[in-house]
């Protein structure tokens, strides 16, 4: 008589330490092997797109903070650029540089969280405390800049809310001087760790074709070997004047598109962000920081789609205006959502423990999935 095992339906989440928020996965498992993995999303749905239709344009800015709470500046920036292009608002040069600076700073701390939680999900708890220590410093800088540590609400239509405080750039350079050796330390600490590498290389491989089919974006796409970065290929703000490389996954660090490559691309991106911030500090022009208009903002009727490169990939805002004080419709496209959709295809066939690695390496943030 052949040995057979019954498959079992297993609920992973909604409250599971590895899901980074409230996410649920319905697994059909045969022992440790997953036969089917279906993500069940919507636990954090707050109806942000509907709220956008009910509040004036400027009032939606604090809500974009809540879109992706680990990268609020980037969400602010995406929304601000959308409305500015639709309403034809000019932004002073200094404001543009400040925006790029804060966006890259936020990218660093977002990736720090991603790297730290990834290591923690893999069982190494110490790196998380190290990455959070660095993040605290940046949070202090942001607090000094705009008064808030997480939900910044800093970028406005036509500029930024506050000018840089006195001596801010010096303190920022001091942080960067401190941070660069730390990044090398992380590499010695976890990236080059034999156990960490053995655990992740070749796990949950997303091929180039799969990445394209499922419209992966951001670091996940680049880890699968596609050289695409909106900051370089469709430059917005002053990214066109910046010099930086786009790290793309390759065979030199493990297999193309595996968990380790996705991790490694993020580490490399942090180095590039430091480069961009240094250029911003060097080039920071004088002048006005906010081209403030006293009138109520009215966006002319029409449609516009603007995408920007957030830490979790492309963040797109599709705005339909009928000429009123409020958007007629605002659709938000986020990187985490498309990353979520590929879990079903890649997840089946994995071990349960490897699914944790896959989710952590995709760097999914639950509020961004559900909006």
């Amino acid at each position, binding site marked *: 008589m052949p040995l057979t095992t019954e498959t079992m339906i297993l609920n992973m989440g909604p409250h599971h330490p590895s899901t980074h928020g409230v996410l649920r996965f319905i697994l059909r498992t045969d022992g440790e092997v997953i036969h089917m993995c279906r993500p069940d999303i919507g636990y954090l749905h707050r109806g942000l797109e509907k709220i956008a239709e009910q*509040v004036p344009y*400027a*009032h*939606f*800015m*604090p*809500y974009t*903070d809540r879109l992706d709470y680990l990268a609020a500046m980037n969400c602010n920036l995406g929304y601000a650029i959308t409305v500015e292009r639709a309403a034809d608002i000019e932004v002073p040069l200094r404001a543009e540089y400040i925006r790029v600076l804060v966006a890259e700073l936020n990218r660093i701390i977002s990736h720090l969280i991603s790297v730290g939680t990834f290591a923690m999900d893999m069982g190494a708890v*110490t790196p998380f405390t*190290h990455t959070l*220590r660095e993040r*605290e410093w940046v949070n202090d800088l942001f*607090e*000094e*800049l*705009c*008064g*808030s540590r997480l*939900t910044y*609400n800093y970028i406005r239509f036509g500029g930024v*809310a*506050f000018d840089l*405080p006195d001596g801010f750039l010096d303190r920022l350079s001091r942080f960067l001087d401190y941070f660069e050796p730390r990044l090398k*330390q992380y590499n*010695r*600490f*976890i990236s*080059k*760790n*034999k*156990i960490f590498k053995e655990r992740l290389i070749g796990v949950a491989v997303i091929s180039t074709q799969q990445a394209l089919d499922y419209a992966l974006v951001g670091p996940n796409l680049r880890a699968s070997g596609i050289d695409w970065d909106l900051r370089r290929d469709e430059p917005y703000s002053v990214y066109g004047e910046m010099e930086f490389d786009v790290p793309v996954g390759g065979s030199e660090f493990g297999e193309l598109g595996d968990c380790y490559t996705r991790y490694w691309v993020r580490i490399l991106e942090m180095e590039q962000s430091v480069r961009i911030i240094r250029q911003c500090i060097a080039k920071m022009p004088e002048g006005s920081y906010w081209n403030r208009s006293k009138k109520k903002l009215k966006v002319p009727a029409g449609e516009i789609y603007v995408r920007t490169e957030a830490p979790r990939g492309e963040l797109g805002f599709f705005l339909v205006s009928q000429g009123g004080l409020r958007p007629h419709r605002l659709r938000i496209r986020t990187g985490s959502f498309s990353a979520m959709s590929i879990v079903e295809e890649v997840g089946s066939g994995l071990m349960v423990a490897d699914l944790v690695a896959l989710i952590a390496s995709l760097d999914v943030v639950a509020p961004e999935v559900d909006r």
Partner: protein
Amino acid sequence: MKIFDGIKGYFRNIYESVTTVSMGMWITFKTAFFERKVTLQYPSHDILEGKPKDASLSNKPNLNPPFEPLLGAGQQIYKGPLNTQLPERYRGLLGYDEPSCISCLLCALNCPIDVIRVKGVKIEGRKGKVPTTFRIDYSKCMFCGLCVEVCPTDAIFFTRQFEGATFEYRTLIREFISPKLSLERLQLAEEAKAKAREKKEEKEKSARETSHTE
């Protein structure tokens, strides 16, 4: 030859594991014993001194801490224990400076979630309108700062108070103008209105009379 490679690989694996793990351990060790500790025993210790604030206080849990009333800009503001380290632009709970408020409603109109409720009346001897109701619902506030940004007289501002935790929601709804003061102002406004009406009537009357005589 293949078997030798296998053995070599086996020992290399062991060597790499031991070295990389000990490297990580060394960093942990260094951080744990030689680097400056950053843990702050926040409520019980003074941040700057690093000592317990008041031994008798720190041992007793305060079950229902009084929620200090927020005072105006000119008056003494409640200073949180982290006061010295908070930056200038810190967004704490909203504060309100009654004398400078002109009830222009800009803060209420600029709030995305209707946290602020303002009503005002016109009274002689003060610029703008005088507020009769000013209510902030701290339980809803999301500290976006849009109201502070638009206030023309800096009547609404951010304090440095962040310890707003209470046991009941209703304690988070704050009336900044006492009912007594509100009533007084409403009466004053009513009297002023009545006076104006009388004046107007008299004027009209006299105008009618003059037109009658002509």
